[in-house]
């Protein structure tokens, strides 16, 4: 049974349960709803929730687990001999899956009966059959793969059937049980509210689950990676030269250097400009100028990073190359640390300025009055009273901006280049952690090789760095806010 149908039936059961629950409750009170403990709607909702929620949960878990189970059972069927030297078990398994999907497509289009598929032999022109159904296979089918694919289809089909039955049974059971409990004094509202609260808690814990998922998904592969490549060479290696034939050197230091260098240039631009803009807009500009300019500056924050990336690639890069790098003899590359850094700096201006604006506005007016009353000028007040008072908040803002810069991807992919170098010349193309994550994980690569798995180690490193910056910044900003509240 297709998933969509299952959903539709579940929905119908839920609606029916709602109606039945309502009616039964009203009937139990003899038609006088004042004699019910709760309003009729809650009796209906209680039945609907009992029918829907457990069934959906089981369905969801089943969907997650079934492929893993099927995979492991089928994978065991493939003999070692069927896996040639040039490939791995996981690659063969993906062939099996593709073949199984192809056979499904063939059956769906009515080219062949579903029983006939399971009886197919290797000699039966499978490739041509699939080709007619629009599924292209790279090579002829191995007998072991075909057998595995047929087995795969069979287990999957059985699993799907069992899933539908289990889910529907559970829904009906929940419905009947909830209906049977309805009476005049049944505390339906309390039940429903407890269920809703559980749902709310579930929603709130998705945030935790996400973080857990991020850490686990990267940790798992990172551990695998360190099994194949020494962690010491990764963290302290000064050469980055992946080689898909083996013998790669995967030292993170050149990438880390590029990341930090570009972020440094970006902050060098964004911090003074952002800070001075915030100061000007909050202390000097009149209300009309402020309401006009502030949103305009913030537009810069709403522009997607891919736009900045293209700006770096098409405009800033060639400009820097033709008017600075080449005349000065510093290089001839359009993509460079400078290009990416400057464009990223522009992107970060509104980030720094709006965060600084918030913290500057949080400095109480009495502080300004105290300074003005002593005969201080505005700039003296800003430099010697407001900025020192707001300093923790500003530092927090800068740390958050740094975390942004370190994790930024599109601008560096398009503006910084791909060469991993430890160099001081800012007009030289260099590369970053994020660029390498993208390049190692896109393209047709083997997921088991260290050259691919290094991306997870890079990702985890990136996550840890930005996490540390974020948490420190958040704590500083929080403390700062409490101080003036």
């Amino acid at each position: 049974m297709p998933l969509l149908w299952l959903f539709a039936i579940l929905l119908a059961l839920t609606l029916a349960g709602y109606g039945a629950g309502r009616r039964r409750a009203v009937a139990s009170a003899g038609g006088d709803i004042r004699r019910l403990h709760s309003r009729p709607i809650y009796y209906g909702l209680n039945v609907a929730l009992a029918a829907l929620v457990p069934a959906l949960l089981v369905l969801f878990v089943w969907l997650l687990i079934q492929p893993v189970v099927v995979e492991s059972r089928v994978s065991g069927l493939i003999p070692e001999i069927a896996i040639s030297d040039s490939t791995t078990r996981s690659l063969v398994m993906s062939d099996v899956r593709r073949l199984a999907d192809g056979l499904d497509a063939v059956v769906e289009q009515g080219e062949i009966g579903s029983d006939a598929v399971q009886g197919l032999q290797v000699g039966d022109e499978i490739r041509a059959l699939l080709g007619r159904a629009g599924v292209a296979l790279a090579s002829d089918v191995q007998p072991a793969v075909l057998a595995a694919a047929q087995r795969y289809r069979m287990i999957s089909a059985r699993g799907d059937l069992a899933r539908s039955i289990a889910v529907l049974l559970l829904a009906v059971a929940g419905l009947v049980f909830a209906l049977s409990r309805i009476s005049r004094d049944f505390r339906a509202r309390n039940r429903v509210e407890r269920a809703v609260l559980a749902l709310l808690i579930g929603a709130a814990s998705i945030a935790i689950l996400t973080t857990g998922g991020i850490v686990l998904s990267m940790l798992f592969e990172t551990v695998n990676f360190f099994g194949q490549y020494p962690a010491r060479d990764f963290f302290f290696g000064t050469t980055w030269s992946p080689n898909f034939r083996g013998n790669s050197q995967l030292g993170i230091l050149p990438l880390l250097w590029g990341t930090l260098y570009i972020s440094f240039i970006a902050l060098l631009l964004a911090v003074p400009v952002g800070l001075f803009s915030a100061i000007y807009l909050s202390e000097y500009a009149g209300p009309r100028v402020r309401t006009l300019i502030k949103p305009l500056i913030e537009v810069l924050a709403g522009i997607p990073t891919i736009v900045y990336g293209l700006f770096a690639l098409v405009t800033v890069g060639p400009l820097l190359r033709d008017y600075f790098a080449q005349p000065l003899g510093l290089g001839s590359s359009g993509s460079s640390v400078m290009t990416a850094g400057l464009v990223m700096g522009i992107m970060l201006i509104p980030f720094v300025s709006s965060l600084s604006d918030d913290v500057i506005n949080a400095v109480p007016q009495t502080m300004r009055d105290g300074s003005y009353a002593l005969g201080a000028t505005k700039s003296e007040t800003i430099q010697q009273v407001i900025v020192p008072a707001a300093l923790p908040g500003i530092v927090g803002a800068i740390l958050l901006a740094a975390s942004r810069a370190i994790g930024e991807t599109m601008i560096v992919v398009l503006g910084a280049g791909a060469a991993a170098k430890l160099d001081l010349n800012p007009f030289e193309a260099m590369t970053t952690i994020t660029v390498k994550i993208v390049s190692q994980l896109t393209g047709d690569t083997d997921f088991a090789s260290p050259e691919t798995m290094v991306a997870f180690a890079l990702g985890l490193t990136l996550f840890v760095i930005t996490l540390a910056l974020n948490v420190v910044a958040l704590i500083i900003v929080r403390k700062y806010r409490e101080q003036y509240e």
Partner: protein
Amino acid sequence: MDEIKISAQDVNVFYGETHALQDVNVKIRDNTVTAFIGPSGCGKSTFLRCINRMNDTIEICRVKGDILIDAEDIYDRQVDPVQLRAKVGMVFQKPNPFPKSIYDNVAYGPRIHGLARNKPELDEIVEKSLRRAALWDEAKDRLGQPGTGLSGGQQQRLCIARAVATAPEVLLMDEPCSALDPIATAQIEELIDELRQNYCVVIVTHSMQQAARVSQHTAFFHLGHLVEYGETGQIFTNPQDKRTESYITGRIG
């Protein structure tokens, strides 16, 4: 001893459309404590803030008329409010020490106005100012600690020391005791009486008792008008105006 320090002529203040202060005329004497009293919203604080042009920092505020200090119009185009405020110090309702050390709080004014040529001179100014604000004995061992760590009364005395450090001639105080407990209030009132020897002190207060205790002259404001101005004793015992009498006896306010 009793020369006229501040003289206001036909002062009108507007906040946007609101006419906050109407035709105020007053002559305030030097080496005297002058109290401004009146119900809240009567314009007494507004007038106080006109005397050192703190109202300049509020965009919608306009001031008409003349205020003379030592016969010089402080709203003259040539007058720089920065210089004026060095001459006319101010203490606020809520103690507002800067988030700096006690020493730096007091040294802030002398530093920006360049009153000390070297470190020993600055040290001397800080010490004298803290002594004058009766804070030296409590603060001398903790000059490097943040001013925000002091108690409320100490903070307010620190603010007075800070104001005194720029060597002003006039000290404006905007309800300086309203955020303090009775003991701290008594200390500050005693201090105000001492400050009178060197400064022209103007104090805005909510408390009639305080006005009676510390001031020699009292001005009563009501609904943006200066209703009555005279010696404190006369205002409290023999008010000339009906409204003053009602306020003194507690019928309005």
